[in-house]
């Protein structure tokens, strides 16, 4: 059999993977703080005891786009968006520090400050717990000030500070939980220059038109791969016919 048929098939399969990445970006066009994923294909030659003529394509997502998303005004005190570069530190399901741009914070029943997904926000010393309060404000540097329950309006107490980091983008990677993690497993130090804006949340940074274009482009690429398989079958048919004994 002609090995080219398998090459064309793997091209089609990898194209479908690539389309899934763009479909996922588009599905998350409204997800708070979502960062879109890139997709690329890598040429993978097959080495062995033969001439390395076969080169398979391999789709991978080499990185995440860190461009800023739209700032959406909500006016809610606990909604914060990172202005410019930087991330909000949270604890992932395993208790490890991870990073996100989704700042739709809330307070759970235990009085803990968590993200919209329920992940605890990292403070100066571990998770952030807040006492009952009549007013909560988060300032630009992540400091949380509250007016305690029953307190006068001028009795402002600064309680804790949200850990904000600004690592080298080369050293962060989106993992299976959709959160950003450090590539080498180290936690990043807090950066005092990262600024928060309260009353806003950051939308997704997915560029919908770009993603649509990619999806259409990939559909055509898939069709080319299928056409290739079709052509190869024709070739196989022709060669089989030539070899048939003329009766």
């Amino acid at each position, binding site marked *: 059999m002609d090995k080219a048929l398998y090459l064309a098939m793997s091209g089609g399969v990898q194209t479908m993977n690539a389309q899934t*990445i763009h479909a996922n970006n588009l599905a998350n066009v409204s997800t708070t703080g*979502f960062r879109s994923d890139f997709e690329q294909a890598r040429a993978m030659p097959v080495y062995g005891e033969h001439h390395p003529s076969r080169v398979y394509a391999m789709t991978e997502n080499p990185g995440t786009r860190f461009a800023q998303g739209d700032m959406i005004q909500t006016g809610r005190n606990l909604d914060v968006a990172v202005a410019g570069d930087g991330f909000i530190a949270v604890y992932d399901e395993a208790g490890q520090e991870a990073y996100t741009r989704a700042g739709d914070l809330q307070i759970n029943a235990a*009085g803990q400050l968590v993200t919209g997904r329920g992940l605890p926000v990292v403070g100066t010393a571990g998770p952030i717990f807040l006492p009952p309060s009549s007013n909560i404000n988060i300032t630009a540097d992540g400091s949380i000030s509250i007016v305690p329950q*029953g307190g006068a309006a001028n009795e402002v107490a600064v309680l804790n500070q949200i850990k904000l980091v600004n690592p080298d983008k080369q050293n962060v990677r989106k993992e299976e939980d*959709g959160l950003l993690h450090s590539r080498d497993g180290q936690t990043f130090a807090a950066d005092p220059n990262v600024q928060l804006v309260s009353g806003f949340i950051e939308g997704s940074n997915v560029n*919908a038109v770009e993603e*649509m274009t990619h999806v259409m482009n990939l559909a055509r690429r898939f069709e080319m791969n299928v056409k290739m398989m079709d052509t190869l079958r024709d070739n196989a048919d022709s060669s089989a016919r030539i070899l048939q004994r003329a009766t």
Partner: protein
Amino acid sequence: MNSALWVSKTGLSAMDKQLNVVANNLANVSTTAFKKDRAVFEDLMYKAVRAPGGLSAQNAELPSGLQLGTGVKVGATQKDFSNGDYNMTDRQLDIAIQGKGFLQVLQPDGTIAYTRDGSLQLNSQGQIVTSGGLVVEPGIQIDRDAVDILISEDGVVSVRKTSDADAQQVGTINIAGFINPTGLNAAGQNLYTETNASGPPLVGVPGTDSLGRIAQGMLEASNVNSIEELVNMITTQRAYEMNSKVIASADGMMSFAIQQL
């Protein structure tokens, strides 16, 4: 089959839910003390086809892997308990809570529900009830010959009768506050019930403990901003259209493959 189909399907159903939330907000734009909802989107887990940092050959590490996202879901709806506008009505039994608290009302099953809808009325026994007919806790009885009902900022209800020059105190309205009002269960009819997430209610005198003061003769309007909801509606519709376009594209790929091969 093409997993892009399933991913876009999650996009469609999430946008559908978002539209539902927007429609409900807009439908309640005139509901007294209605609190708007917001759909909270989250990306679903990623399927690691090839983990980043894996080996492509004995000594060659792949700099990046292949992680395929599996879509999006509406993880929660969040009630925004910010105050709505206050409207003067000058009706004696209309009260608005200026602050974070809730009125307590007794449900038919004996449990307490919480509401911010202060359009109160008297029932046939003279008890103060909500417009839904539920008795405000603690129960307050108003005599038949009362001319004026006065509700003070701190919840003291007093009545003035024709026979009397001075007003007499007949009861007090308490207010309940919650650590996390977003965790309350919205029971409909402007009522909320306590859950584990909301925490137990902190009941107190209005005006203390940041529970909010009572303003007589006013009603709190819905906090829905109709312009904002309309913008949400448009973006939701466009996102829906784009997800369905991806489905069409993925379907086109499959049908082409099936026809050609």
